[in-house]
């Protein structure tokens, strides 16, 4: 009979063999990074919104300016009762909130944090793989909306479907602009190609379309129509309580994280940046995190400044304005690629 410590030693040997893989999965682009990012963004958003409203925001949770507030929320929700409506479809009701954060987090494995620090290289097609996985994400609000058998959630899940269709096509087209500039689908080659100039300068129109696409895809404020509190109570999350509700909230922030990381890799030169104190690996990661912080702050700023679009206005923006601009951006990319290759 295999004894306990034998198992432990073999597992330890396996871990020591591919230590880098475990660090990548568990720490830097993996579990710890995502949880810390979600906790920090929740705290930052509540404090930032409070400042916009001239108030203080969470203060007494942790001693200094309430930084333990998200942890207090998590501890409370962790021990709360999970209520499943009687006429809800139990299996799907549990499935949707569990799988949604997983799918959103799955896309982060393709993002390069350093020249050789990427979990899965995607054999040259990581951009297409990213869009394939991210395309699954809108499916789960539909499942959740249908499973919780509530009028608010059905309306909200249909709105998610409209919004995601209207948002993903401009995203794809503007990504095509970047692919033309680099000539390859691999995210690491895209980042390497941006060493001379970031693609936000030649592909400026594409960057704008991509940014608006991010807001619509991750349902941030001007486009947070599926979770419109004023019309449909809490969107497709209305029936969830306890840890399931926590998972759906985390999914929203992980979606924001994955899409803004893609924006950084495509347009802001991924991990490009001056090397600090001679340690290339750490400085590459440092630059990615700095750009991520700036981008997330801008996205959260939108929440204090703008009200919300109506669903038909949002779709009109997606189809009528974003797609033509993205196509124009493709032409610009072709012109830049053929006539002034020296810029890139």
């Amino acid at each position, binding site marked *: 009979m295999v004894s306990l410590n034998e198992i432990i030693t073999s597992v330890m040997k396996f871990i020591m063999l591919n230590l880098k893989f475990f660090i990548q999965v568990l720490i830097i682009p993996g579990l710890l990074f995502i949880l810390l990012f979600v906790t920090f963004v929740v705290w930052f958003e509540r404090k930032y919104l409070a400042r916009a409203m001239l108030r203080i925001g*969470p203060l007494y949770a942790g001693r200094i300016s*309430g930084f333990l*507030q998200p942890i*207090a929320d998590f501890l*409370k929700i962790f021990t*709360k009762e999970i209520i499943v409506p009687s006429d809800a479809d139990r299996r799907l009701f549990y499935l949707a909130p569990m799988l949604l954060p997983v799918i959103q987090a799955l896309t982060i494995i393709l993002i390069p944090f350093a020249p050789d620090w990427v979990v899965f290289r995607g054999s040259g097609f990581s951009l297409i793989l990213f869009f394939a996985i991210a395309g699954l994400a809108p499916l789960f609000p539909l499942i959740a909306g249908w499973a919780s058998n509530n009028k608010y959630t059905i309306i909200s899940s249909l709105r998610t479907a409209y919004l995601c269709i209207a948002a993903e096509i401009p995203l794809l087209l503007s990504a095509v602009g970047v692919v033309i500039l680099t000539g390859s689908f691999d995210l690491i080659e895209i980042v390497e190609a941006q060493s001379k100039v970031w693609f936000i300068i030649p592909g400026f129109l594409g960057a704008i379309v991509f940014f608006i696409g991010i807001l619509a895809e991750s349902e941030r404020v001007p486009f947070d129509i599926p979770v419109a509190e004023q019309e449909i109570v809490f969107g497709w999350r*209305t029936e969830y*309580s306890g840890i399931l509700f926590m998972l759906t909230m985390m999914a929203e922030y992980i979606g924001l994280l994955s899409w803004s990381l893609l924006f950084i890799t495509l347009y802001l030169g991924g991990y490009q940046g001056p090397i600090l104190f001679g340690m290339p690996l750490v400085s590459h990661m440092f630059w990615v995190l700095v750009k991520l912080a700036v981008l997330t702050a801008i996205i959260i700023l939108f929440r204090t400044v703008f009200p919300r679009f109506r669903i038909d206005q949002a779709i009109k923006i997606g189809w009528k304005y974003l797609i033509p601009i993205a196509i124009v951006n493709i032409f610009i990319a072709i012109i830049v690629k053929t006539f002034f290759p020296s810029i890139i």
Partner: protein
Amino acid sequence: MTKKNQTRRLIVWDVFNQVYKKIIGWGRKYSLWPAHFITGCCCPEFMQVAGPRYDMERFGILPLPSIRQADVLVIIGVLTRKMASRVKMLWEQMAEPKYAMAIGACPIDKGPFYDSYSVVRADEIIPVDVYVPGCPPRPEAMIQGFMILQKKVEEGV
């Protein structure tokens, strides 16, 4: 299983239990989410408490749209018979560690409408944890009510 192991295990379990209670109590104390639900005429004062000057979010109190995720049902102002049936329904829909708070003189004992035919007291409908008198009570009184509720939440884990 010798007696020594058993007592050691009990001690370990007791220590873990207390640590668990302290942490979860602290978590629940600083994250009381009332539902977006206003029953009566004290609601402008509750908005002032949520406003910048008194700011109940310092204590982690964040009004949430849906009743499923709320853990405090705050009865703000007068409670009429028609509203009482909805309050009863909401109270049953809330997830388990739930608390109730009655703000204003009317839920306590019908306030200035003592002889009205359609006003009811709050404790005829749901078990109330904290009462805040006043018509409308001052924002400081409401925040003190929340702090008393926080103490009760922390001990009652």
